């Protein structure tokens, strides 16, 4: 039977950090470091295969079993809402998912009756307001530079990830509420966890040990 371990990585900085971590944990990832435009990088000797995917697609690959393991940000996991095992908090890529708006709304968020929310994360925004706060809201899906929306009156507030908060500050916006802390996670397909436990369990343990030793 096919015992190759397929690992889906989020193209970009998260992928580099994930590869570095796996190497420190004793896994040979030469294949994944190849400078190439190939999307599947395989090393038959180590039995590892890496898929370079768009971050938002990583949970999908893992849920459907096209990849056994994935490394992806918690923001993407929350937004995609897939059925997965979320086994390790890798710590890197740390930031917060926040509700942000103009400074004058600080402490007065509830003063807006019908909130219009601009966001790249419609699902997170909807769950936070509709389920947690029991409030109906209007969501406006945007694809980037979300901070623009309240500035030009497209939305009252935004839901977005905040790292240093500088972009917010420079645009006269501030964090109104924090929804959840975000960082990179290792996720595992529910079937792979059972069928390939012999190779996945040791990998999880090795990575955990590496994270504890720092």
């Amino acid at each position: 039977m096919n015992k190759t371990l397929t690992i889906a990585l989020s193209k970009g900085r998260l992928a580099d950090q994930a590869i570095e971590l796996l190497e420190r944990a004793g896994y040979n990832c030469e294949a994944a470091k190849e400078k190439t435009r190939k999307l599947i990088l395989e090393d038959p000797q180590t039995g590892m295969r890496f898929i370079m995917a768009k971050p938002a697609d990583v949970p999908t690959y893992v849920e459907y079993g096209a990849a056994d393991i994935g490394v992806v940000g918690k923001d993407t996991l929350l937004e995609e809402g897939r059925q997965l095992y979320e086994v390790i908090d890798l710590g890197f890529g740390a930031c917060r998912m926040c509700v942000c708006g103009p400074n004058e709304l600080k402490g007065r968020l509830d003063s807006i009756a019908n909130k219009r929310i601009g966001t790249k994360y419609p699902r997170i925004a909807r769950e936070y307001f509709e389920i947690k706060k029991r409030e109906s809201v209007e969501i406006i899906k945007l694809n980037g530079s979300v901070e623009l929306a309240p500035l030009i009156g497209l939305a009252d507030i935004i839901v977005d990830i905040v790292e240093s908060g500088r972009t917010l500050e420079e645009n006269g916006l501030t964090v109104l509420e924090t929804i959840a802390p975000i960082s990179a996670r290792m996720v595992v397909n529910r079937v792979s966890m059972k069928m390939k436990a012999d190779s996945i369990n040791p990998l999880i343990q090795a990575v955990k040990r590496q994270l504890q030793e720092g």
Partner: protein
Amino acid sequence: MGQWQFHTPEGVIDYLPEECAVKRSLESKLRAYFLTRGYDEIETPGIEFYDVYAGSEVFTPQETLFKFCDHKGRILCLRYDGTVPAARLAATVCRDAEPPLRFSYLGNMYRFNESGGGRQREFTQGGLELLGLDSPDADGEIIAAAIGSAQSLGIRDIQVSIGQVSFFKGLVEEWQLSQEDAENLQLKIDTRQTVALDELIRRLGLSENDRAVLEIMTSHDGNIDVIDKLKRLVDYPGCIEALNNLQAVLNVLDDYDLMSYISIDLGMLQSINYYTGIIFKGFTYGLGFPLFSGGRYDGAVAAFGRDLAATGFSIGINFVMSALRRQGSSETKLQPAVRLVYEQDMRKKALAVSNEWRQRGLRVICQSKQDSALDKVDLTAYAGGIEEILAADGLSSRLIAFMRDDGDVQFFTMGVKHQ
């Protein structure tokens, strides 16, 4: 004419002959297997009143049901699963039948799923329901039948994870968690969010001992010694009862000689409002989802007013097809039909001969020469006769039979005509 004229709706597909033959073959194998286990097949309607499913809202959220209205404005829905209709049946039309009841079903179910990877919105599911018994033997019978079903369909590598949701419910009761905390804890355990779980444990102020219990629940080793480990850590009555029940079911499975397939997973907590005891899922290679799943849901029939314990499982035919395809297992080939071609004046004789062949098990198309367009192919005489064709297993689809003027039949194989 609408723009959707050429399309099928999302999540449903057409089965072409080859694939349809594979599917039918699996369905008939599964039906035969269910019969050998002594379960009687029932067929419930493809349409139910929405109210039938509304009672199990936690298990069938309303947005996953296909809904429409009847002529009186009542809400109907397409059959979502085999269990709820079977429970309705057991509590209504079969209310006087002496338990235990053993039902099987095989049919199409409809759900607003996200489709892909073998998942469809219209899919075929078979399953068993054992109603009226709440013994470990009954749970063991169902798990054994689930494994046997998968094997009868040609799936070889099977792993079954078994859990017991009462263990978690016992913890919640003992720790006196609010509903919100309990749901939060359930999600964190079920999705193995170990870090978030740590935070939650701290916030709930659980002891080191309780933490160790949760660590075992979320570990992935699946070894059956977790039962003993947990017994050393907890003495909550609900939990102990759950562990004893789990052990009793494992003892049954041991007698079935099935322990090599089994691992323990007490962290499986999906749909725990629906399941009341043992819960299990079966896995195989090449499929991202469980191949079969089931467990004990003693509340299902009670929801229809009859107090009847219930355990059962279902297996997805579409999942089996995907798994077999990806595992490269040999698939059933559609037996090709022989074409018997006749001149107009030999029609009566040809029709009689083709019927005779059909009775002997051949698939026969009987067709006039005019309709056969044979001038485009090269015919080569075939040495064998009808007896040989009947004996052959994989008959060539290029075989053609001619009814000659004298009523004798001659066989040919077809090739492409060279210019």
